[in-house]
């Protein structure tokens, strides 16, 4: 009789222990789930409208400068646009830094880090191609003509990746770049087959229309849609 009661107690204790371990494992899983959800849902909203408008203005100004100078050789073209993109990047970084300072937030916050990491591979590919065009001599003309569409493709991919952590149609904007890049790349390839590649001065207009005007238009759209009027709280 005594043996049975001891066994019963043991079984009950074991049962409670198992239940408790199962529950604590479940609690740990829940915590991980919450952490993942919190990380995934932290959206990057910083300085989108001013940075895209500024990038657009700089792109259009650079296109006009490149066209009017004119820069018609492949290597100077790449150098010119690489320098322009670097200026845009620095200015955008300064604007984001300023906004973070005003909002009393850290500049290199987890959302900023995630967006930067998402954009980095595609941007590195585009930058690498640009560096190749600058450092190498005697590259075929089609390579230089292929650069603007390839830059658009990589930039579009970078924006699309960043769109997973950003609101407000960034993915769509990235897709637009990818589509434009693909169309222009096929046009450049067809042009090289036919043997009719226009002067590189025209490439400035393409850069101005895509990187310049598209950014500018998107920035204006963001500015216009940011003005909200609260009805009730």
């Amino acid at each position: 009789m005594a043996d049975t009661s001891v066994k019963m107690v043991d079984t009950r204790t074991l049962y409670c222990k198992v239940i408790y371990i199962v529950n604590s494992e479940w609690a740990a899983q829940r915590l991980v789930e919450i952490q993942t959800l919190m990380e995934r849902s932290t959206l990057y909203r910083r300085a989108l409208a001013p940075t895209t408008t500024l990038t657009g203005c700089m792109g259009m100004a650079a296109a006009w400068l490149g066209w009017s100078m004119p820069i018609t050789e492949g290597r100077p073209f790449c150098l010119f646009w690489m320098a322009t993109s670097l200026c845009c990047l620095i200015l955008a970084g300064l604007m984001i830094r300023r906004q973070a300072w005003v909002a009393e937030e850290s500049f290199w916050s987890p959302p900023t880090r995630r967006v930067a990491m998402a954009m980095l591979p595609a941007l590195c590919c585009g930058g690498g191609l640009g560096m190749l065009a600058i450092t190498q001599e005697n590259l075929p003309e089609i390579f230089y003509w292929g650069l603007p569409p390839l830059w658009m493709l990589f930039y579009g991919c970078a924006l699309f990746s960043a769109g997973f952590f950003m609101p407000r149609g960034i993915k769509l904007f990235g897709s637009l770049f990818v589509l434009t890049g693909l169309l222009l790349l096929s046009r450049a390839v067809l042009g090289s087959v036919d043997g009719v590649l226009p002067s590189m001065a025209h490439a400035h207009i393409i850069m101005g229309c895509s990187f310049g005007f598209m950014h500018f238009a998107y920035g204006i759209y963001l500015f216009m849609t940011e003005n909200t009027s609260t009805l009730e709280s």
Partner: protein
Amino acid sequence: MKTETFSQLDKVIHEKGRMAIMSSLSSNPDLSFKELKNLLQMTDGNLSVHIRTLQQAGYVAVSKSFLANRPHTSYRLTREGQSAFKAYIELLAQIVEWNQD
């Protein structure tokens, strides 16, 4: 004591969908209905029901505005919601900690 801990877990937050909404809102100052829907992959009806429950519990505040001439609804955690969510997480952490001991 340990078994009591489970019953202390906030029933409103405990449901998976509502916990997801609370987690998303806790890491953002505010989120729109569309943003929440995209983030959590929920249907309109499901999301509305859960938000209403959280709103009734006083955990979520709703604000309606106009964005590009379109109605725009955004949600944020109230102070009560923030402390309830914090307490929920602390309780979960306590359960895990006890098992490790």
